[in-house]
């Protein structure tokens, strides 16, 4: 039984020893300085606002209505909380605190406001991607008869929506018959995987039947094989469209190729090293580990100039090989560290038994430890894959020409964020590419949510 710490008691908090007083004074003066700074900042920011323009629907005192609306909802919650209390008491048969119910309902309200604010950029980008006229980013307003949010161009109007922005990304792409078959197989596998996952939900907490586990494994393998089969042989010659936007699928292919190979490299390089660090004891082990940790401290981009010139002197500029080699160097230290920790968590007795039976160290590693570390290999692979997928700096420096770009570099070519000038002509196409480009990573994140959460939080590292 864990006892609450003494400081958790309110009495202990209220008592301030005399020698703590200066610290308190210092603390409060810091707070006072911060408040003064924030007031100054607010005034300064306020003085730099622009005057209203014709493109923005401005409602004088709109905030009063908004605040009023919010207060009405809060007032309603005071009523519904009473209802909740009564219903709760009826169903549970014990006293329910009115304030607890009210607190929960206010929490719901706050969280919904936060969710709306946090997800609005996504609503915006999906809406824009469906709008061939780019109405959300144009300097114009809707008709006065439109609903307020549509009229003010905050939410996209539904009429006139189509998929032409998406079509522009695939314009002139020649897909061979067998590639369609691959795509079809992949889609079916994905669908089946979703069905399997839904069926798995039913066993929450319980033990999964073996059949379902096998089914999930084989469907995943089929899906991965179909994706590889589809993208691996997608060649630049199949892209006959005009304009860089029509190379979108090629960028996806390039990114998959680069990220996938980098991920595999990361797994190969880190597993052997991590295993040796965890299990083998030899002079120099600790020093090597410190060397790895020390090297990891250098941010990769600091040495950008040098990496550029090394890749150039190897004649690998503008090749995927060069980019993959450059990425692989950065992946090693962290992956080795996590894998070392993972192997240490496995019982050593398994390997010892195998070694007594005459297996070599290498045999113990490949036949006992590796098969046991499936989830960890997936985590190392995914971390590297996702990190590389979103990378654009090295790619920007090392790759040139629309045929070789990855997604990150390609997205910048729409002129949306290229320079300081504003160019909204291709914003719709950009939005479509952004939506499609984000889908693989969002899917991976949600598919492996648990792996990510435990892995990244434990590692204390944000990718």
């Amino acid at each position, binding site marked *: 039984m864990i006892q609450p710490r003494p400081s958790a008691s309110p009495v202990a908090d209220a008592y301030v020893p005399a020698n703590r007083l200066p610290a308190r004074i210092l603390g409060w003066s810091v707070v006072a300085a911060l408040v003064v700074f924030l007031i100054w900042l607010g005034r300064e920011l306020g003085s730099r606002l622009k005057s209203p323009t014709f493109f923005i629907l401005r409602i004088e005192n709109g905030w009063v209505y908004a605040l009023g609306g919010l207060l009405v909802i809060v007032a309603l919650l005071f009523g519904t909380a009473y209802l909740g209390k009564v219903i709760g008491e009826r169903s549970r048969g014990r006293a329910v605190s009115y304030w607890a119910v009210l607190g929960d309902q206010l929490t719901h309200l706050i*969280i919904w406001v936060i969710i709306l604010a946090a997800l609005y950029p996504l609503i915006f980008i999906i809406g824009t991607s469906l709008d061939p006229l780019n109405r959300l980013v144009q300097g114009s307003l809707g008709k006065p008869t439109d609903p307020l949010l549509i009229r003010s161009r905050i939410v996209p109007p539904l009429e006139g929506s189509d998929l032409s922005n998406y079509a522009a990304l695939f314009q002139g792409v020649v897909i061979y018959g067998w590639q369609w078959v691959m795509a079809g197989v992949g889609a079916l596998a994905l669908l089946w995987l979703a069905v399997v996952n839904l069926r798995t939900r039913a066993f929450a907490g319980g033990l999964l039947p073996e059949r379902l586990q096998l089914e999930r494994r084989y469907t995943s393998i089929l899906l991965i094989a179909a994706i590889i089969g589809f993208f691996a042989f997608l060649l630049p010659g199949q892209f006959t469209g005009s304009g860089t936007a029509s190379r979108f699928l090629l960028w996806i292919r390039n990114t998959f190729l680069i990220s996938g190979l980098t991920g595999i490299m990361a797994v190969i390089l880190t597993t052997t090293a991590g295993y040796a660090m965890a299990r083998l004891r030899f002079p120099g082990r600790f020093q090597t580990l410190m060397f790895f940790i020390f090297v990891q401290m250098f941010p990769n981009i600091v040495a950008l100039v040098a990496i550029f010139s090394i890749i150039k002197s190897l004649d690998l500029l503008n090749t995927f090989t060069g980019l993959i080699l450059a990425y692989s*160097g950065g992946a090693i230290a962290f992956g080795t560290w996590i894998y070392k920790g993972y192997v240490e968590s496995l019982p050593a007795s398994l390997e010892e038994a195998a070694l007594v039976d005459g297996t070599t160290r290498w045999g113990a590693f490949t036949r006992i430890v590796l098969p046991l570390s499936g989830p960890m290999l997936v985590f190392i692979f995914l971390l590297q894959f996702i990190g590389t997928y979103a990378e654009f700096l090295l790619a920007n420096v090392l790759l040139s020409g629309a045929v070789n770009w990855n997604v990150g570099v390609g997205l910048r070519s729409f002129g949306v964020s290229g320079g300081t000038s504003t160019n909204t002509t291709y914003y719709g196409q950009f939005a479509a590419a952004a939506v499609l480009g984000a889908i693989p990573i969002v899917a991976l994140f949600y598919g492996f949510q648990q792996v990510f959460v435990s892995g990244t939080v434990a590692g204390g590292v944000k990718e």
Partner: protein
Amino acid sequence: MTVVRRAPRQAPPAGPSGVFIAIVTILGLCAVAFGVGWAVTQVLAGIFDRPGGFQIPAYLILILGAIVLIPLMVTAVRLLPWLVNWYYLLPAIVFLLAFTVYPIVLTVGYAFTNYSGLNSGESDTSTRLEVTKLSRVQLKLAAGANAQTELRCDVPTCAGVPIAMPDPQDAKKKPRANSIVSVEGGVITLSSALPEFYKPIQVNRVNPIAFIGFANFSDIFAKAGVQLWPVLVWTVIFAVSTTLINVVAGLVLGILLNNKRLKFRNVYRTLLFLPWAIPAVISVQIWKEGLMATNTGALNRLGGLFGGVPIPWRDDELWAKVAILLVNLWLGFPYMMTATLSALSAVPEDLYEAAEVDGASKWQQVTGITLPMLQAAFTPIVLSTFAFNFNNFGLIYLLTQGGPQLEGRLATAQSTDILISWGYNTAFTAAGNAAYGPASAIAIIVAVLTIGISIFNFRAAGVFKEAQK
């Protein structure tokens, strides 16, 4: 016939000598292998240096080296069986040395040179001399050409000036390097003989990369008032405040969502997780133009509904900083929220029950139990977030590109540039004029600061202690 052989040693020599022997052996093997690779490549390059021949790519050294290395390693492990321990580490060490350590060493070297787009050790195409071949060591200038002015030589004879000759047939081939012995009366004498078949038509000057001591650093510190100090101050302010803002937002949301009675809390968590799942390279670009444009951006349109006036998100130096913090909050809060939730799931429930029995209010429970329990889990997270944001190049570059421009500041170090983006601008944008040497000097300053932060960070996280296990 019996052969008496000394049994190979199974155990490594104790102490530092074992490490020393291992490192020397492995480095020796690598040196031999890649040396052979280099030599074979040179021979091949000589063979294929003929009309219609092709250029041997430099990466062949790597492939050949790897092919030679494997039998060498097998032989070595026969002699010293304990070396096999090191073979597990070898792939990782080779890659680290080649693509992490070597670039760092090179960066340190570049920091003391005048390496730039102009002084690159390659053909300077702004200098050119049309020539025809006289003999294997002599080239004839076009009539009326002046070698000294065309090649910008210091002395009239251009003695010792390094030059390069672009391939007359194939522009993609590497220019052939050479140097001038003398120029006399329209005839250039070269220091090394050209192949018989090779007929150059043009000569470019080569500006070598020269060692210039601490000039890059003294230049940076001389101009520190308009670049280093303001950029450093903003880097620290940005990293500290974005970490604080994100941590507070994540804590508040995490604590709200940790309420076990709350219905749909998993749905909320899944929805709020979304910004983390979208690659930042995509979401920052969405924010930049669609949401933060002054006249047509969605944020200002939304603000207009509440009676607000347009905010110059990217045109004002102060608002641009607010914009950066805002976007980074959006990018980072799901991570902090998730970290809070998983740290809180480790807090035993009976702690709260005991507090409730003692009559502690909800607020007292948060300050007395939740926050102290979170402290241990959050220390490494906060520190690594700070270190990450200290070098958060992607955000700054994609959102503001360091802008807006400020009077009196260098074009490479604008109002929202952080140290790392300042270094990048110096090397890779038009404003910096490809000044690789100064950029490397900046990189070293960044690296020193980052290592300081990391050492502090790893100490707090107990990495060093864990390594010793």
